[in-house]
């Protein structure tokens, strides 16, 4: 079936004119409608997608194919799109239509891809289960009673159910890698600064980074190729050339040193998860990689550090939602201060408000040194731990998440239990490094397990080629959920 092909295969079939973009896009839209129960999409842009597909077909007929001409993809609803809704999973932006496109959206558009819609997500990307969305929870295609992970849960569910072959996500503390792990996908958080954040609604600006969620590493490389590169409109964008990721995929793992931090392989991790991770490492070892024991001694401080820095930055970023310039405006306001307080109380969900309050507390007079400054110092300690570990290895490996996908509702009453999901992912954001999750097996309940690869700054190529080589030897990434 058409939808079972990878993004790269579909792109090539379109180029060879074996299929048309109109036919493929129609097929994706039909599948999205058939899988509405997953709640993976907030907005489906049928007319926009069909006219983009028709334009792509004309272009292909002229023999003028760009990188992704005619390939349907979806964007996480955090990326601004001109002309269609951008909600960020929030009541605050329930009716918001951006006047401009995010740079990432613009680049996919220039590369010829067809945007079928916007995917569901945790509200303002704050969550690890996609249960904080104003538009309802997303279901995991592998087991509809379980979460898809978050915050890019809609993108992950859409790709896992083969509604689209690739989708964009964003990752502030694990929001691409953890849902990719929970849904059996390949998800890449690039190095901080690799992908433009212009038009990507800000959560924590020193941590946020956009990246691809796909079924295999080859597709992730292709999408990254499209997304990456300098953007003068993002002051944190790094002005460095993007290597040709797709040709680097062929790099052998022979001689590659894989570092296993002892802190990532302890008893806090589910036994089956560790077993599958170790099995995939044995495959890489057989291909000629060497396994090295390393240590990230301060990784336990990562979660508390992250839950100061991310909420502090969020409290500042989200101050723009004031009921005046855009977004929800309360109808109950006699005075200006009521307008602010009521618009924000009505427009934000509980988890977003909790994080804004914690962030405000950490930044408030008398607490700044004890919380925010302390967290920034820990951030350097964590970044230095990675630097030290990378003296002995080229790529750091371990589980993406301590468990497989958990049941819906299991952690909604306990924010701290939810936060602990990010224990292996959020230090990577604190240090600004690239991280990738790749499927490495299934537990006895039939749920996917993710292997995380962490690279040196700007070395996405090693992560993608290692994942690609693993995928030449294993077929975990080719499995599909039943009924999809």
């Amino acid at each position, binding site marked *: 079936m058409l939808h079972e092909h990878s993004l790269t295969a579909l792109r090539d079939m379109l180029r060879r004119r074996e299929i048309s973009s109109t036919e493929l896009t129609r097929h994706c839209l039909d599948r999205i409608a058939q899988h509405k129960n997953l709640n993976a999409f907030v907005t489906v842009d049928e007319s926009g997608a069909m006219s983009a597909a028709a334009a792509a077909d004309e272009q292909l007929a002229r023999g003028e194919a760009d990188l992704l001409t005619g390939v349907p993809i979806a964007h996480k609803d955090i990326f601004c799109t001109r002309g269609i809704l951008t909600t960020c999973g929030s009541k605050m932006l329930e009716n918001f239509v951006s006047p401009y496109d995010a740079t990432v959206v613009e680049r996919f558009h220039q590369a010829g891809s067809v945007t079928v819609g916007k995917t569901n997500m945790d509200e303002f990307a704050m969550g690890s289960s996609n249960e904080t969305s104003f538009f309802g929870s997303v279901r995991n295609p592998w087991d509809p009673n379980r979460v898809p992970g978050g915050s890019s849960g809609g993108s992950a569910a859409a790709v896992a159910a083969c509604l689209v072959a690739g989708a964009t996500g964003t990752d502030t503390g694990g929001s691409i890698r953890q849902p990719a792990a929970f849904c059996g996908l390949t998800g890449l958080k690039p190095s901080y600064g690799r992908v433009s954040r212009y038009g990507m609604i800000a959560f924590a600006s020193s941590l946020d980074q956009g990246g691809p969620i796909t079924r295999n590493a080859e597709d992730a490389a292709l999408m990254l190729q499209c997304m990456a590169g300098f953007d003068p409109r993002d002051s944190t964008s790094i002005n460095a050339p993007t290597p040709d990721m797709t040709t680097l995929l062929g790099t052998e793992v022979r001689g590659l040193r894989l570092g296993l931090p002892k802190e990532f392989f302890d008893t806090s991790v589910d036994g089956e998860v560790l077993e599958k991770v170790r099995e995939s490492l044995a495959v890489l070892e057989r291909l000629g990689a060497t396994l090295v024991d390393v240590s990230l001694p301060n990784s336990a401080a990562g979660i508390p550090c992250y839950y100061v820095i991310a909420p502090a930055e969020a409290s500042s970023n989200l101050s723009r939602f004031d009921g005046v310039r855009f977004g929800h405006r309360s109808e109950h306001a006699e005075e*200006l201060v009521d307008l602010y307080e009521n618009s924000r109380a009505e427009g934000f969900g509980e988890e977003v408000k909790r994080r804004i*309050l*914690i962030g405000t507390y950490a930044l408030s007079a008398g607490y700044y040194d004890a919380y925010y400054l302390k967290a920034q110092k820990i951030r350097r300690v964590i970044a230095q731990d990675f630097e030290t570990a990378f003296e002995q290895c080229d790529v750091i490996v371990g589980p993406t998440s301590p468990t497989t996908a958990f049941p819906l509702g299991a952690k909604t009453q306990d924010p701290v239990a939810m936060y602990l999901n990010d224990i292996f992912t959020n230090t990577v954001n604190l*240090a*600004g490094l690239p991280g990738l999750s790749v499927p490495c097996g299934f537990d006895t309940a039939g749920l996917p397990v993710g292997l995380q690869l962490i690279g040196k700054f700007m070395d996405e190529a090693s992560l993608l080629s290692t994942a690609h080589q693993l995928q030449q030897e294993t077929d975990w990434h080719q499995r599909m959920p039943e009924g999809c």
Partner: protein
Amino acid sequence: MSISEKDVLRVAHLARIRVSSDELGDYQEGLSGILSLVEQMHDCDTDGVEPMAHPQDIQLRLREDQVTEPDQRDAMQESAPQVDEGLYLVPRVIE
């Protein structure tokens, strides 16, 4: 570590978020739980460590002081709840 009702209200006002009296207990509990987690930071020795504001200590670029974006006021104000003659409208301010 627990946070007092008074502190929740102080922070809620600073953040300009209305917290009603029946929500107060929930926020107090939620925020106290997070602060207990955050307290674990103090187990990490950071004596003599410089704070890191940005990954990789990246310095923000400066650009020439030139107009690079066109005037898009009308387009930008299309998403505003209430505008009049190019101005944003708010309720009256009483100080």
